[in-house]
């Protein structure tokens, strides 16, 4: 393993120190427990948006803290969910009284830890809601699995809900919008190489020179299928089909009832894409794939969308939700409407995503 690190035990801490040193005007970093908040937190009268998860996906989430996106981010160890005290302390640091929305990627670890955090925050008198992101079309059923993983749509949800909070949406409205954007989104990922978790010291899996993994998550895990290597047009066509032709997806999610102080179940069904839909197309590098190659993916993706009568209204192309230095990419499509487009276009000023400011 060759990485620009010192001791493997201090990787996350030293990277946070570097961020804090580099961007004192933008963010504040708390070390015990770890969390990152915007420099001007808490923002008076605004619903606070918090996300978090294992480290190793940079710029997500710390790089999305700032005006128009997240108020706080809770980084765990590399690829390990953060703990509830991080989320709880972070919530206390960013809540201005308008409440806190947790955006949680659907992994059992993340889900359970955020649930505990929500209970702690509620017990402390903080208004809290929690919305799951579960967009990974590589996972087919929710009955026999922990359900679809939260992947690329996370970035889109954070951007759009962050803008809505900035525009004065209340907690319930933010939660409803987050749920909608997530339900409008689907993703699929592929890997050309594995990545190496610092604490493990060796690549998570071995992949031959003539193979790639189809349907990966974002934790360096192998995907749904191992296939012989193909051209970018062939790979993109497969990915586009996995997203664009995916059937309706139903599952039960748990949300927090802030009046009752309890969790309740909610049945949700994502409808398939159809001709006439307008989408945000997000082509993401897993880290090691250069942005130039993402443009070749986008080129074919645009053709596949057009062939199905799906119009790309906006796009985002680059490394935004990564798996360390893994080579590969993911495609996320999110159906849009006027509300979504308005908040997508709204100004955002974070280290990882910035426009209009």
């Amino acid at each position: 393993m060759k990485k620009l690190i010192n001791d493997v035990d201090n990787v996350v801490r030293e990277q946070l120190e570097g961020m804090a040193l580099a961007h004192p005007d933008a963010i504040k970093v708390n070390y015990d427990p770890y969390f990152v908040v915007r420099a001007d937190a808490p923002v008076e009268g605004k619903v606070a948006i918090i996300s978090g998860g294992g480290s190793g996906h940079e710029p997500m989430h710390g790089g999305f803290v700032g005006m128009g996106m997240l108020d706080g981010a809770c980084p765990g160890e590399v690829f390990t969910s953060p703990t509830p005290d991080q989320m709880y302390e972070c919530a206390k640091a960013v809540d201005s009284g308008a409440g806190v929305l947790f955006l949680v990627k659907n992994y059992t670890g993340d889900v359970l830890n955020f649930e505990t955090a929500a209970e702690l925050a509620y017990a402390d008198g903080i208004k809290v809601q929690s919305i799951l992101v579960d967009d990974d079309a590589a996972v087919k059923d929710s009955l026999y699995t922990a359900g679809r993983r939260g992947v690329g749509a996370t970035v889109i949800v954070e951007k759009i809900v962050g803008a809505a909070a900035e525009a004065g949406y209340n907690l319930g409205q933010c939660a409803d919008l987050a749920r909608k954007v997530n339900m409008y989104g689907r993703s699929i990922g592929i890997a050309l190489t594995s990545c190496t978790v610092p604490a493990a010291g060796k690549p998570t899996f071995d992949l031959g020179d003539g193979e790639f993994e189809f349907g990966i998550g974002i934790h360096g895990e192998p995907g749904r299928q191992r296939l012989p290597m193909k051209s970018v047009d062939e790979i993109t066509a497969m990915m586009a089909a996995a997203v664009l032709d995916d059937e309706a997806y139903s599952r039960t999610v748990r949300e927090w009832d802030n009046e009752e102080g309890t969790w309740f179940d909610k049945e949700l069904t994502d409808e398939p894409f159809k001709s006439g839909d307008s989408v945000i197309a997000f082509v993401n590098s897993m880290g090691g794939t250069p942005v130039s190659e993402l443009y070749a993916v986008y080129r074919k993706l645009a053709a596949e969308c057009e062939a199905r009568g799906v119009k790309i209204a906006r796009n985002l192309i680059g490394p935004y939700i990564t798996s360390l230095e893994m080579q590969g990419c993911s495609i996320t499509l999110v159906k849009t409407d006027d509300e979504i487009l308005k908040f997508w276009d709204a100004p955002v000023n974070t280290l990882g995503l910035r426009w209009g400011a």
Partner: protein
Amino acid sequence: MITKDQIVRWLEKTAAVLQANKTYLTDLDSAIGDADHGTNMDRGFKKVMEKLPTVFDNDIGNILKTTGMTLISSVGGASGPLYGTFFMRSGMAIAAKEELSDEDLFTLLQAGVEGILQRGRPNLEDKTMYDAWAPALEAMQGALSTGMGTVEVLETAVAAAEQGMKNTIPLQARKGRASYLGERSIGHQDPGATSSYLMLNALLETVKE
């Protein structure tokens, strides 16, 4: 009767056993998860050992709640909140006690498992830690009704937990990270069921000492 001292020694023994089995548990997790269950549990119980002296003078309920809080804030992953809730709930169930009857012990464990159920919503045979706890509780309840002594009661429970743990091998996972592997999860023993068995066995050994 179980004394506060024995509860403390149970936690100490659990920490020692998890440290000794760190690689074993992580290897089990490599096969069907993300190769961190041993590291997670060891990190958590090391923290518990640091915290323990500060609550030594409190009652059993308090000690267990502190254990739960500590696990929650140091383990992360799926097992952190699950075991954390286990100890929080068990502590709440026997709040303010300085020693425990066998029935109290059952109440304690049952409340803990109730916590796992509420948090993780496992069903039987989802291939999780619950597959070790569910048969253990059932066996313990049966043993208690026959009037066995503490050691025998726990021996019955541990034997059932061990069997439950082994029964996870042929199962296909339907909860947690292993569920994404689909059929590839079959043929491997669940790491969480294994740590649960180790934990209960540590209790038996403490009581036998």
